[in-house]
């Protein structure tokens, strides 16, 4: 079918491996995503914290710099689990806003333009389509979360010298796993929202609402019933517990308050929900999102 021949001819060349075809979607999506100057500016901003953290780690091991600043940086900002936990928390929060920017149009645009039959009439399955769309978020948010996190970890291990890497290997796992869990949750949630809401602004608003409204509701439950179980409906609180758990910083007891029982003032211990409950809540949220997603991602919807 050459331009000059004007005749129909079949394709006889080589084909790409089937397993790699889902990566076609992020490759084409990035073109669109990086067309926005606002997005590029925000994406660049996301690397500010890793840069500052890298400088801190460097200064930590530079005796001359510490002497020059006349500060005991080692005590002020210790490079430990809390340091990396703070890094992951901050970057994952930025990852959420990044997802709010890029997630909503990923599927809604295809649904609005009836593009799914075109994708699914090719040797390309629904699962590959969803994984391909998820990869857009997975790749971009990975670039600002666990990838710089692990680079910082390696920088610290290099500068600290022998022994530190072996003793703190758990931190590397925690950085990777904590980020990955959050990225998967974000990806699944934003795609589910994108599949059900066609308008970008509404979908972005819905993503923010899903994050903040249950959190506020959970706090009301906590305040009314003097409990911490309200955290189970707050995505932010669930993730915070899981991150703390992964970094070995989780504590169930988060305070004591005074309460009345039988006319007497007593101390009530506030206990966070156990970690297994947080994992379960997260799994339920993800399961629901996947269900919603697979219900909508079809070549044609059969109207009953």
């Amino acid at each position, binding site marked *: 079918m050459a331009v000059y021949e004007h005749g129909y001819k079949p394709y006889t060349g080589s084909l*790409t491996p089937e397993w790699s075809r889902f990566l076609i979607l992020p490759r084409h999506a990035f073109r669109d995503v990086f067309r926005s100057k606002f997005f590029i500016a925000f994406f660049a901003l996301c690397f500010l914290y890793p840069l500052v953290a890298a400088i801190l780690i460097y200064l930590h091991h530079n005796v001359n710099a510490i002497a020059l600043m006349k500060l005991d940086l080692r005590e002020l900002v210790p490079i430990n689990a809390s340091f990396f936990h703070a890094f992951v928390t901050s970057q994952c929060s930025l990852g959420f806003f990044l997802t709010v920017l890029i997630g909503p149009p990923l599927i809604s645009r295809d649904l609005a333009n009836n593009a799914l039959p*075109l994708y699914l009439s090719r040797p390309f399955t629904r699962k590959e389509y969803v994984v391909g769309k998820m990869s857009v978020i997975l790749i971009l948010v990975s670039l600002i979360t666990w990838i710089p996190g692990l680079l910082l970890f390696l920088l610290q291990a290099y500068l600290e010298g022998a022994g530190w890497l072996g003793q703190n290997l758990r931190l590397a796992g925690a950085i990777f796993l904590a980020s990955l869990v959050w990225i998967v949750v974000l990806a699944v949630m934003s795609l589910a929202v994108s599949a059900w809401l066609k308008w970008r602004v509404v979908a972005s608003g819905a993503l923010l609402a899903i994050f903040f409204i249950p959190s506020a509701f959970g706090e009301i439950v906590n305040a009314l019933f003097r409990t911490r179980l309200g955290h189970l409906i707050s995505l932010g609180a669930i993730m915070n517990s899981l991150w703390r758990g992964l970094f070995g910083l989780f504590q169930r007891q988060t305070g004591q308050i005074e309460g009345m029982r039988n006319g007497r003032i007593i101390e009530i211990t506030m206990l966070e929900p156990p970690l297994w409950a947080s994992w379960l809540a997260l799994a339920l949220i993800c399961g629901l999102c996947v269900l919603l997603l697979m219900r909508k991602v079809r070549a044609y919807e059969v109207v009953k």
Partner: protein
Amino acid sequence: MNPVIELDGLGVVFGKRHILQDLRGTLNGRAIGLLGPNGAGKTTLIHTLLGFHPATHGTARIFGEDITTEARRIRSLVGYMPERDSFIAKMTCVHFVRLMAELSGMPPDAALERAHESLFYVGLGEARYRTLDTYSLGMKQLAKLAQAIVHGPKLIILDEPTNGLDPPTRLRMIRLIREIRDSGEARIMLSSHLLRDVEECCDEILVLKDGRIAANCNLEEERKANRKFIELEMRGDNRAFAEAVGRLGCEYAFTNERRLKLVLPEGVEIRDLYKIAAEREVQIRRLNYKRDSLEDIFLKAMEGGDTMVEATATPSATVAATGGNGNGSL
């Protein structure tokens, strides 16, 4: 060689509604026309063949590959042009077609090259860098055709390809379909409720009615069989004329008072009819060779049903209940 499509008791049920029921048959044509009134199950059949809907009963095979077990392989052999507007917003046409080619398994460079080629082939070469949302309806249809053929499939399924097209664009679309058919490199399945489109492109037809096969025949053979099929419009003593041509061995039937259909036997020529007309002082106002019988087949398949089918270019063919001796049918 494997047939293009084999239907083996294929049935599809949505809820309690039987959309397709026990479809059986073998389709071998270079271009297969899928006909039927609205709601007959044409699009559902296409979707089932593509694996969009699971078959509830039976199965079907495309080039010998089973649709239930080899769906992925089948989709690599097939190019599909959907009926409704389908595209990816904010993309240039060449980017869109390239993406579709890559999803079919072509490497990026080859996909880009083929995208350019297929857009030139369908006549969108000059407009290929425009975004799809700026295209007219006709251009969108051509872009859909380009994405369906970009990976060089062995079977191209076209669902209502001429929907909403103006006459020149329709002619262009028909010409492209015929060119692809005549190249012999791909088989075509064309679903349409426009008999004229099917008549111009297809050599085999499958007529669906209420989810069942109402007719399945080879149009080429029908055309050959109907080479001597003539329609006359006359003024004068038509009955006497008819009896005279009957004595020549012609089978005939009146479609109304002034119109006569007849089949010329071997050895009888048109001039014989003029001779008889002159002898009986009958005027032959119009004489048409009825080249094919698609509308006949369709109407017969519908059993005179009240369909929304557009008439073909050939004259109407309501067959009267009289024959060579005045009692048969054609």
